């Protein structure tokens, strides 16, 4: 499987649905670290990133 090979340098590796969700959430997928096979960003990774951002904006807001 190609998905197990290395991510091309500088490219984000995420299924279209995750990309879409990131776009909708205003998250730059490049800032999310992937935990899936080959470094793929999973839906969970994105959710975590969104949560983290929410937490940090909360922090900032406080």
């Amino acid at each position, binding site marked *: 499987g190609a998905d197990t090979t290395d991510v091309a340098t500088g490219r984000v590796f995420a*299924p279209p*649905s995750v990309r*879409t969700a990131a776009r909708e959430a205003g998250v730059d997928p490049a800032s999310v670290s992937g935990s899936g096979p080959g470094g793929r960003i999973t839906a969970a990774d994105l959710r975590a990133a969104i949560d983290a951002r929410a937490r940090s904006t909360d922090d900032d807001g406080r």
Partner: protein
Amino acid sequence: MQATIIEAINDALHEEMASDDRTVVFGEDVAESGGVFRATEGLLEEFGEDRVLDTPLSEIAIVGAAIGLAAHGYRPVAEIQFSGFLPPAFDQLVTNASRIRWRTRGEITAPMTVRTPYGAGVRALEHHSESLEAAYGHIPGLKVAIPSTPADAKGMLTSAIRDPDPVLFMEPKHVYRSFREEVPEGEHTTPLGEAAVRREGRDVTVIAWGAMMHNTLEALAELPDVDAEVIDLRSISPLDRETVVESVRKTGRCVVVHEAAKSGGFAGELIATINDEALAYLEAPVRRVTGFDTPVPLLSMEDYYIPHPPRIEEAIAETVEY
């Protein structure tokens, strides 16, 4: 009534011959002997030799004459004994049948049906097992329909015969007799160009047609935890993009199963369609489970070639887990 696919086809032919006397059935061995698969059994006796004819061994002439006869106002239903013997008539499909309406701006049309058993699994000789629906489906103006159930076989064949344009009707011979199912008596039509959702589900969309529908269902039986949506494509052309797209938007995952070789196979068009209109919903690559990029082997290796349930099962499982 309960009927197999082949019985349903025979029933549809009887019904249409009776309901429209412009319907003419011909092909190699269809009259006197009732067809090598018995699809046309009893027609000669019932409708006579003007309307049920054995032809010379001439695929070009069978398809070509069907075009002319249709253009003249009849409703020819030609049989090509095995789809492996349709390639000699490829030119008649490309050059004449598919474009006669277009070329003449609707003045001359070809409301004809070419029936042909296709696919592997019946331990036949070379060239008896091919699936070239992707090549035929690429010809603008030619409809390509493939039933997978007895009821659809009857309904879709009836619609094909009544269709104002040429329809290539590919019959999954491997499952001609493998099961019986309730088939409506009397007139029964099923619209062409519409896929059927055989089973609703949320985890993954599985698309198949013809005999592969059954291998797919077998595979799913081994995956009780997977809530699959199963689409019986039924129509290669025109393609029911809407049903496919809607389903994949819902499930985000998809597996396409076909018997034909992978490269250039019809899964490509389906994946392109998903790419066009459901890409953003995809949670995993669409998996293809197909025949290999080899000729269909003779019977000793035939089972290797056909996408068997374990291959399908693995692809579904991996797609769901992706």
